[in-house]
């Protein structure tokens, strides 16, 4: 089993790599859709700005690749920016995104006396026992760094909630896609467990 890590120049992939290596997973990093198509599972990480990241994805044909990979049914884990741009659009410079899941990424309100970015450890409340949270105590804390939050149209897709001024969906899942706003690779033992759940999941179960 080989995991592909999608590289589109959005932030540092090193921490995702070291976490996977620590868990003993076989992985490779690539920005080539043909190479990535050979992977059994895909991690779509990323930190950065939506519009310039979408430009790079399009330029390399990775937006089309993502739609096809999603249709094929192989497991995908979106992290942070990778969680936001699988939705239709983002309020960050009004960007049209990859559109695997209907929804929008919204900006945290600046008039709520909240510091932006939402940076640090915050609790994640799992709402429907999704496999990705298996053996992780509910309301465990994970590490967040973001100024926009994902808002999928179908609320049934939401698998976890987090409070930051408002209650937002910190994780959602549709079919073979799981998307988490926080950084499991930087969230200590619980984060590693979440990645392990993704790696170990047998397809179709």
């Amino acid at each position, binding site marked *: 089993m080989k995991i592909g890590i999608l590289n589109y120049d959005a932030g540092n992939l090193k*921490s995702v790599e070291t976490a996977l290596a620590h868990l003993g997973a076989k992985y490779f990093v690539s920005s080539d859709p043909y190479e990535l198509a050979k992977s059994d599972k895909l991690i779509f990480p990323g930190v950065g700005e939506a519009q310039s990241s979408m430009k790079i994805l399009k330029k390399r044909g990775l937006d089309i690749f993502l739609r096809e990979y999603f249709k094929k049914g192989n497991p995908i884990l979106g992290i942070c920016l990778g969680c936001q741009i699988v939705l239709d659009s983002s309020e960050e410079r009004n960007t049209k995104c990859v559109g695997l899941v209907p929804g929008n990424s919204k900006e945290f309100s600046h008039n709520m006396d909240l*510091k932006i970015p939402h940076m*640090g*450890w915050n609790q994640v409340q799992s709402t429907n026992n999704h496999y990705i949270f298996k053996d992780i105590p509910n309301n465990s*804390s994970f590490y967040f760094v973001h100024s926009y939050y994902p808002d999928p149209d179908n609320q049934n897709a939401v698998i976890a909630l987090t409070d930051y001024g408002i209650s937002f969906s910190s994780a959602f899942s549709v079919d073979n896609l799981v998307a988490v706003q926080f950084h499991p690779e930087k969230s200590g033992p619980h984060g*590693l467990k979440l990645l392990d759940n993704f790696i170990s999941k047998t397809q179709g179960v």
Partner: protein
Amino acid sequence: MLQKRIIVCLDVRDGKTTKGVKFKGNVDIGDPVLMAEEYYKQGVDELVFYDITASSEKRGIMIDIVKKVAEKIFIPFSVGGGIRTLSDMKQVILAGAEKVSVNSSAVKNPSIISEGAKHFGKQCIVVGMDVEMDFSKPSGYGIVINGGRTKVDLDALEWAKKIEKLGAGEIVLNSIDADGTKNGYEIKLTRMISESVGIPVVASGGAGTSMHLADVFNEGKADAALIASMVHIDGYTVGGIKEFLNKENIPVRI
């Protein structure tokens, strides 16, 4: 609810963790990689490594340490000390650091903040401010650089606002007056800066007891607190400090 972060700071000189008082005299206290692993086990939220290596030819030692730390601990950590250029930043980020910290170099060349934010994202760019009481300044506090040795003509509050405007993701606010005293953080300064900027502020300098952390969170409005000698030398554990803060109803990650 967003939790208050406890950040352990390790000053690294020639590959060893060291601890000084008021920037004078340093003693080696251990191996930074082993210490990082120990604090990770204790539940620290983040780590900061400051490279205080005097000679530039020994810089490579720090990069090796960063790589080793990145393989062992899975929480965010930042690296500072001697970072002057985008290429310095790139080196530590590629080695596995989540954030880079600039201090004196940002005072001398503020555009390093905006350039760093543009290249690596604002969440990567931490600006350290060494602050000293100075009644000739409008806010009552001025900035010092070069490890506290050189006074510059800069008001602390004005500089903090400028740091935010230039695109930094976080401020580490170090009080030179409180540093090493173990009498508590500079609450008034921390509150003034934290309430004037929209980015997180990490309080630094002066922690001696768990109550000092409670005070800087409650009264100083800090988003995170930096500690060093409390855990390096005085026998406190991160877990013990968090337990205390939890009893004081301060939200921390247990």
